[in-house]
């Protein structure tokens, strides 16, 4: 419900045109019909399962789970309020923001899903392509349009990719799911190199803007870092090039073995050079046909939706003073904005003890109010399970911080050891082998002391409850993988991963630790870093310099740490 003191603001973001609205509306009614036919028995479960998955509906450990798409992580306040309403009305009053920047609701009833989808369609949202072997929700740098580091806002391209790939007739039944991320600067906040395909907006030697395309990254059972497919693709050719990559994948991928169906396996089997050749041949054919060019006027039309807000001029660029707690929060959670007097504020949903990524309907409503009051009605969902207010005046930061404190979302820990990614794990997920969330909570509580966190500095812990790696453990500076040993949960440590521009795959340390041992093992690993780091080294830097041995010795208690 809209706070009467707050005027709802419509941010600059993509709006459905007539085609989009009709498409989503028809899709909702189509699925409503499928649900009715399933309930009446006209459809069997085997027939219905792929249909519900195409609409983001899973059957999980306790009930149905609905995954709601948040394209490139951008939400308006109107949409946030609708999510709060749905969470309150149809679920148990809390939702979970995921590492794919979606929102998952864990207690959904099948009979309610048509009504929920109609409510989502009212605010231009849906659950299409949040599951199944198709191109999934496109993700993007959460600072898009706000950071001065980028060449241009990557979200128009993300929206164009979304439109191109939504129900693309060739790519509805891929061998496996296909995830795309976009960014526009050297700094990688979107784990781009761990995606099936990533597009980075770049400038060539002549200063012309185009796209660098990478492919073959991924987590899961067999992690890989993406290879560069082409250093520079011209603007008008980007869809043709992406289509060429997907077409080669669709034609040449293994469909006979579920563990070998992702594009990362294809590229690393035939080699990146051979993949580049095959893609180049396909690209040439598409170009010759001349059927898939991205016209500049269409790019301009989509870009206009994302025009930057009218930033006030003449604002002071000084950071206001509002006490030590506020200063701590600013030091970690506030980032440089492109406009003088403005800032980007990260809301970590990670106060030690909280479930990473969870928010209640009341918290969502209050954040929607903050969006309207202070951030042109807009928020971003990050793959690190946080939220970002992209355009806030520096002078408003103390008021925002005060409100976040009331919400218990004011932890000054963005990028620190308690800013932990965790998948839902065995508490919710049908695929999980072990719980993730309680491990995140116990580690966060162990390192709760702020000065200790600040002393440790940047350290990204990422926890997955199974080898599918939704918690990105391969990319954690310290990754943790939950495994099942005869019905008992154990946790393997994985060190040295990174999901940033210096991407690397973590190395497994050895045998796992018990549920009540893992936080202490992490502490011993961190103590090695603190004892052996050189000036300016992050945990990751020290690990890369020293290798696994000293950390392993300490973790298993061979040396005191």
């Amino acid at each position, binding site marked *: 419900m809209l706070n009467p003191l707050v005027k709802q603001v419509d941010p600059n973001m993509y709006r459905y045109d007539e085609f989009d609205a009709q498409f989503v509306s028809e899709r909702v009614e189509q699925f409503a019909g499928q649900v009715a036919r399933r309930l009446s028995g006209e459809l069997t*479960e085997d027939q219905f399962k792929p249909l519900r998955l195409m609409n983001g509906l899973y059957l999980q450990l306790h009930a149905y789970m609905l995954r709601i798409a948040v394209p490139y992580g951008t939400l308006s306040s109107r949409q946030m309020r609708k999510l709060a309403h749905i969470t309150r009305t149809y679920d148990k009053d809390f939702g979970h923001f995921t590492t794919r920047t979606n929102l998952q609701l864990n207690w959904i009833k*099948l009979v309610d899903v048509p009504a929920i989808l109609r409510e989502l369609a009212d605010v231009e949202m849906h659950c299409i392509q949040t599951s199944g072997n198709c191109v999934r929700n496109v993700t993007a740098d959460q600072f898009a349009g706000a950071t001065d580091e980028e060449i241009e806002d990557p979200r128009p391209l993300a929206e164009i990719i979304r439109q191109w790939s939504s129900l693309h007739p060739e790519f509805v039944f891929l061998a496996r799911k296909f995830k795309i991320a976009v960014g526009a600067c050297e700094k990688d906040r979107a784990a781009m190199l761990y995606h099936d395909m990533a597009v980075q907006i770049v400038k060539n030697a002549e200063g012309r803007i185009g796209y660098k395309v990478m492919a073959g990254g991924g987590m899961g059972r067999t992690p890989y870092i993406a290879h560069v497919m082409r250093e520079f693709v011209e603007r008008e050719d980007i869809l043709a090039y992406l289509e060429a990559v997907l077409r080669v994948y669709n034609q040449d991928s293994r469909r006979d073995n579920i563990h070998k169906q992702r594009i990362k396996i294809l590229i690393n089997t035939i080699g990146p050079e051979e993949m580049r050749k095959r893609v180049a041949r396909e690209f040439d054919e598409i170009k010759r046909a001349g059927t898939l060019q991205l016209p500049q006027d269409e790019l301009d039309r989509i870009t206009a939706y994302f025009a930057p807000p009218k930033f006030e001029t003449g604002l002071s660029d000084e950071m206001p003073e509002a006490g030590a707690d506020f200063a701590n929060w600013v030091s970690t959670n506030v980032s440089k904005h492109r406009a003088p007097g403005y800032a980007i504020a990260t809301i970590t949903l990670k106060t030690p003890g909280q479930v990473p990524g969870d928010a209640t309907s009341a918290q969502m409503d209050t954040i929607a109010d903050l969006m309207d009051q202070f951030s042109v009605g807009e928020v971003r969902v990050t793959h690190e399970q946080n939220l970002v207010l992209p355009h806030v005046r520096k002078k408003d930061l103390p008021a925002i911080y005060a409100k976040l404190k009331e919400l218990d979302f004011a932890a000054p820990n963005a990028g620190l050891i308690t800013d932990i990614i965790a998948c839902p794990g065995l508490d919710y997920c049908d695929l999980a082998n*072990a*719980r993730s969330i309680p491990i995140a909570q116990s580690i966060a509580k162990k390192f709760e002391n702020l000065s200790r966190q600040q002393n440790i500095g940047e350290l990204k812990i990422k926890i997955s409850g199974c080898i599918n790696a939704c918690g990105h453990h391969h990319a954690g500076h310290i990754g943790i993988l939950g495994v*099942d040993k005869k019905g008992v949960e154990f946790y393997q440590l994985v060190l040295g991963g990174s999901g940033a521009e210096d991407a690397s795959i973590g190395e497994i340390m050895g045998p796992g630790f018990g549920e009540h041992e893992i936080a202490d093992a992490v502490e011993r690993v961190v103590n090695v870093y603190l004892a052996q780091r050189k000036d300016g080294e992050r945990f990751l830097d020290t690990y890369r310099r020293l290798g696994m041995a000293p950390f392993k010795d300490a973790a298993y208690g061979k040396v005191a740490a």
Partner: protein
Amino acid sequence: MLTANRLRDGDVLYRKGSGWVPMLADAEVYPDQASADAALAAATAETLRNEIVAPYLFEVRDVNGKIVPVKEREIIRAAGPTVHPHTGKQAGQINA
């Protein structure tokens, strides 16, 4: 023991006799593989009635007179998320 989900709301159910109950403590323990397999076969045939989905068997053991699943997965499924004790069957909630 035998479990499934109710089709219309996804709620976790447990087999008792020829019907279903929401709580594990009220459900039937099959003493041997043959009786468990027979129960699963009956439940699988029942899925054609479109009331339950995804039936499967899981192991339990007797701990001081209380029936407890062997695997953590089934303990959590029977109770609810360990991180949200106010939800799930541990809080007396049925998802119907």
